């Protein structure tokens, strides 16, 4: 009788897993082959034929090794989040900000809505570009296996970053004003939050989300057509 343990160990020597896991797999597959061989022998097959019939179960050991590796590969939740949210999100944020800075450097003037302290600035070309950036973030996230919520979060990531910046800016400003002793007029703060919230968060957010939704729809349609085609 062949040494099944040794045979499996030799044929699957390239399994890039930790030693204990590799030993477990070798032992499990060897036990399967051994049992299979014994059943063939009990059925009356000569030893040589029983070995052949047993080994026929694995046509390509390299392929089996590759499949086991894929099946055993663990993607940590953190890695998933990096691929599905952080990379697409930061890329969307960086590219959209670079585009905005470029527009400002090229001398594009913002469109001013309102008057006095309530004026809201809109960079029309930037806003027009945001659906594309939102779509890019959503596409990368969906490509990385992101689900609906993650895909949409990745697409609106630039406004999430801006929201975080605003939320940090106000308490910091409040602390500074307390230190230097000048009184804070909360009506001005509230107006500023509303004004900047509309100009830098709400409207850009809608534009980014539009792109994100479009990509999500396309991805859904693609997977639907795959399902209809039955693999």
């Amino acid at each position, binding site marked *: 009788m062949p040494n099944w343990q040794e045979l499996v160990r030799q044929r699957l020597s390239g399994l890039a897993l930790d030693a204990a896991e590799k030993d*477990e*797999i070798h*032992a*499990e*597959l060897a*036990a*399967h*082959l051994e*049992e*299979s061989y014994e059943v063939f022998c009990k059925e009356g097959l000569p030893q040589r034929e029983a070995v052949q019939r047993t080994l*026929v*179960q*694995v*046509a*390509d050991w390299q*392929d*089996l090794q590759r*499949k*086991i590796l*894929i*099946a*055993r590969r*663990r993607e940590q939740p953190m890695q998933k989040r990096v691929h599905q949210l952080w990379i697409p999100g930061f890329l969307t944020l960086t590219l959209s900000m670079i585009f905005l800075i470029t527009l400002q450097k090229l001398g594009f003037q913002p469109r001013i809505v309102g008057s006095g302290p309530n004026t809201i600035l809109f960079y029309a070309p930037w806003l027009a570009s945001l659906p594309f950036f939102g779509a890019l973030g959503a596409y990368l996230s969906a490509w990385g296996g992101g689900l609906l919520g993650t895909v949409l979060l990745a697409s609106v990531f630039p406004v999430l970053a801006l929201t975080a910046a605003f939320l940090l800016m106000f308490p910091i400003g409040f602390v500074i004003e307390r230190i230097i002793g000048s009184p804070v007029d909360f009506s001005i703060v509230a107006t500023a939050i509303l004004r900047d919230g509309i100009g830098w968060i709400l409207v850009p957010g809608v534009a980014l989300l539009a792109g994100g939704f479009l990509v999500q729809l396309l991805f859904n349609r693609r*997977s639907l057509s*795959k*399902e*209809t085609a*039955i*693999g």
Partner: protein
Amino acid sequence: MIGTGIKRGTAELAVLSVLEGGAMHGYEMARRIERQTKGALRFTLAALYPMLYRMEQHGWIRGAWETSSNGRRKRCYRLTPAGRKKLSPLRREWAELFRALQRLTKVAHA
């Protein structure tokens, strides 16, 4: 809605269904499936284990080493609660597929 990966789906449904009856090791599982499907479904070692490992990663089954009465150590698989939960929609999906195919073949023969 019929899901993707029909082949994979068949194999997963077969494994989850046999494990519903109790824990068993890979070889026994393959034999049971072959016997119960009268040879229509056959799992070679190369097809079975990558799938078992993948299903284990998904948390649908759990493998543990056990020593049998003859002193041999075997890795036995059990259905997890997540696996049980997976089984019913999978069954529904397959029933739907078969109904759809039956309708289709009836139309084709009409």
